[in-house]
């Protein structure tokens, strides 16, 4: 009984060969398409005599930017203008993310409240704000600032030193004094100390079982150290209060209507989604966990910190991160209401230089980098928090 001769299969019926053939064909098609588009583009660029390359970054921008974190003037280069735009995007995203997380968490908790009224109000908020396009909300707040709020002369004046008018929000800030710089440094120092203190406290508790009032100690450090610095620096109390002069305010700090409208729109929209994320996270921890923790004799704060939060956060963090990323991407809608974010500055650059391909490519690269960094962070975090199975 000899083994039967191996059946000869035609190559197109052999799964391995067929898959290679199929992949080659796909790659070939994609390659051809790319070649076609690129050759068209090159021909068009040459015909319309559009400059290519990133040389324009070195040229003079010749346009003003309303708000900038760096010193910037129209005489600076396009490169610097784009950096200013990028910083504006970062500022509005960071401020937005911080407020959104707080507001969204509060609404998410309110949604689960045993108080019927509060829970229903939170549900209505979530339903309404999720279902209205964020761009419409931005337009609404922007128009609200320009049409509904009064002029600086009749500015709304809720508390001392704060004025709300159609020129934005103006408020008093402390007069510049060297001690504030040292206060900033002392906050950072306090944070570093707290980090090591927490590590030490955890290790000691693991070793000896003795707990350490870490929350109160951290709070005292982070608040107390800057206050002590302030007192040691002579406790300056001079304030730079805005005063009405002519048609506008002089002095104080000013937040423009564009920035405020963008911030409000992004916060109210994203907070509705964050609230749902938080609600799902809290509900994912079964009630038995709370009961078990209580029956072990843990205090309510310990139940929350040691049992509920670590489990809920594992569910909350991934969708929360993607909401934060959405907020960052949605901040590009600033272009529609005239806040000079990265997309807006890049749009002006495209209009002036005519180099659309480079401009749009820059926009895509910037957001892609932000996304990839965020997802890298998320993967790291997921790995750290992943359930360690027995």
């Amino acid at each position, binding site marked *: 009984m000899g083994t039967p001769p191996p059946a000869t299969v035609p190559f197109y019926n052999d799964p391995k060969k067929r898959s290679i053939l199929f*992949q080659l064909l796909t*790659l070939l098609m994609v390659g051809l398409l790319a070649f076609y588009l690129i050759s068209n583009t090159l021909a068009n660029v040459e015909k319309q005599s559009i400059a290519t390359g990133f040389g324009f970054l070195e040229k003079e921008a010749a346009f003003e930017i309303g708000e900038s974190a760096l010193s910037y003037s129209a005489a600076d280069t396009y490169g610097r203008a784009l950096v200013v735009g990028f910083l504006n995007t970062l500022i509005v995203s960071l401020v937005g993310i911080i407020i959104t997380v707080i507001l969204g968490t509060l609404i998410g908790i309110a949604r689960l409240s045993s108080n019927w009224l509060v829970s229903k109000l939170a549900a209505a908020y979530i339903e309404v704000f999720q279902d209205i396009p964020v761009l*419409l909300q931005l337009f609404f707040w922007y128009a609200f600032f320009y*049409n509904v709020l009064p002029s600086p002369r009749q500015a709304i004046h809720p508390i001392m030193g704060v004025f709300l008018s159609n020129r934005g929000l103006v408020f008093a800030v402390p007069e510049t004094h060297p001690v504030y710089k040292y206060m900033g440094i002392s906050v950072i120092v306090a944070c570093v100390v707290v980090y090591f203190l927490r590590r030490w406290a955890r290790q000691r508790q693991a070793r000896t079982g003795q707990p350490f009032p870490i929350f109160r100690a951290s709070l005292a450090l982070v608040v107390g150290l800057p206050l002590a610095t302030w007192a040691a620096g002579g406790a300056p109390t001079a304030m730079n209060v805005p005063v009405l002069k002519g048609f506008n305010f002089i002095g104080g700090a000013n937040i423009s209507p564009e920035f405020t409208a963008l911030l409000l729109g992004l916060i109210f929209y994203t907070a509705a989604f964050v609230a749902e994320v938080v609600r799902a996270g809290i509900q994912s921890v079964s009630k038995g966990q709370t009961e078990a923790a209580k029956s072990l004799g843990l205090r309510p704060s310990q139940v929350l910190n040691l049992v509920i939060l670590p489990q809920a956060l594992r569910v909350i963090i991934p969708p929360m991160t993607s909401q934060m990323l959405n907020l960052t991407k949605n901040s590009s809608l600033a272009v529609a209401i005239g806040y000079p974010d990265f997309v807006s500055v890049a749009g002006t650059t495209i209009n002036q230089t005519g180099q659309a391909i480079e401009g749009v490519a820059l926009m895509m690269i910037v957001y892609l980098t932000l996304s990839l960094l965020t997802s890298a962070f998320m993967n790291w975090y997921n790995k750290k928090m992943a359930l360690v199975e027995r």
Partner: protein
Amino acid sequence: MAGTDIKPIKEVIKPPATSVGALGWMRANLFNNWFNSVLTLFTLYTLSKIVPAFIRWAFIDSQWLSTGEACKGADGACWSIIPANIRFIIFGFFPYESQWRPLVAMVLLIGLLFYSRNRDHWKKSLTYAWGAGLIIMGLLMKGGILGLAAVESTQWGGLPLTLLLSVFGLAAAYPLGVVLALGRASRMKAIKVLCIVYIEMIRGVPLITLLFMSSIVFPLFLPEGVTVNVILRAQVAIIMFTAAYIAEVVRGGLQGMAKGQYEAAESLGLNYYQTMRLVILPQALRIVIPPTVSQLISALKDTSLVVIIALYDLLKTTQSVLSNPTWMAFSSEAYIFVALIYFGCCYFMSSYSRRLEKELDRGF
């Protein structure tokens, strides 16, 4: 045994008045501990400040059918901006005397959507009905035959444009998304990598950049003399964008499939195409209905971004009304009206998805 006379209980002891009825409900739901009581009182106080003022503004002091000038002195809302400009807000620059055509098209679309709600109607004839309906809608919009005056697509605007961008966007993005998800799950390296690069790239950038790409970069990609309509370009950008998100949702469903399903299908001798069509996709797509619908809802909302590349969708027509000095001051009213339209559409979709989810739940 006599004498122990047990009196029949004459009166049933009722629960105390404070634990049943309205009072009991309030005790249980609003005032069950001191914190909730404070919260309730605080909320009621805040509401009492806001709600009457809003009702006064929106309904009592408001103007409904007056002229723009008459509105200026009034305290309340000026809803007159809506009836005075309704035809421009809804239809944009569509020729005035032909505006019944997009209206009929929209009614047809909404009728078809309502008819398709019921799963008993999901038959082959429904597919034909949709095909015929879409063709009729296209003819109504475009005109040019049967005595209808031809209307250039540059004149399309308002609500029909929004609905067009979303309905076609969703209809085309869904199958493309499924294909991309299958590609990403494929064992063929080259195809897998291509799909991953596409999905991650699109998901990493805002829709605005894709719209910019479609409106200012894409014309450079085409050979000289070839132009593509700007609405079509925006439509393609929306489709490409939505498809990447749908692909991620569907991938979640594919990952949720047990390996046994693939093995069982293979051992029955089904090939790849049959396995996917008959075994995997019907189950995988069912478990991802809720996230799919929320993707579709955000796609509907995202069509509003075409404002930025100056297409006259619903939001843009509203804005142009507001650029008229007569109506400039009444932006809140106009935006609330548009918000109600968007809210209605999205709410319809999300409540339908909840119902569908319940109907399709087979307990596994």
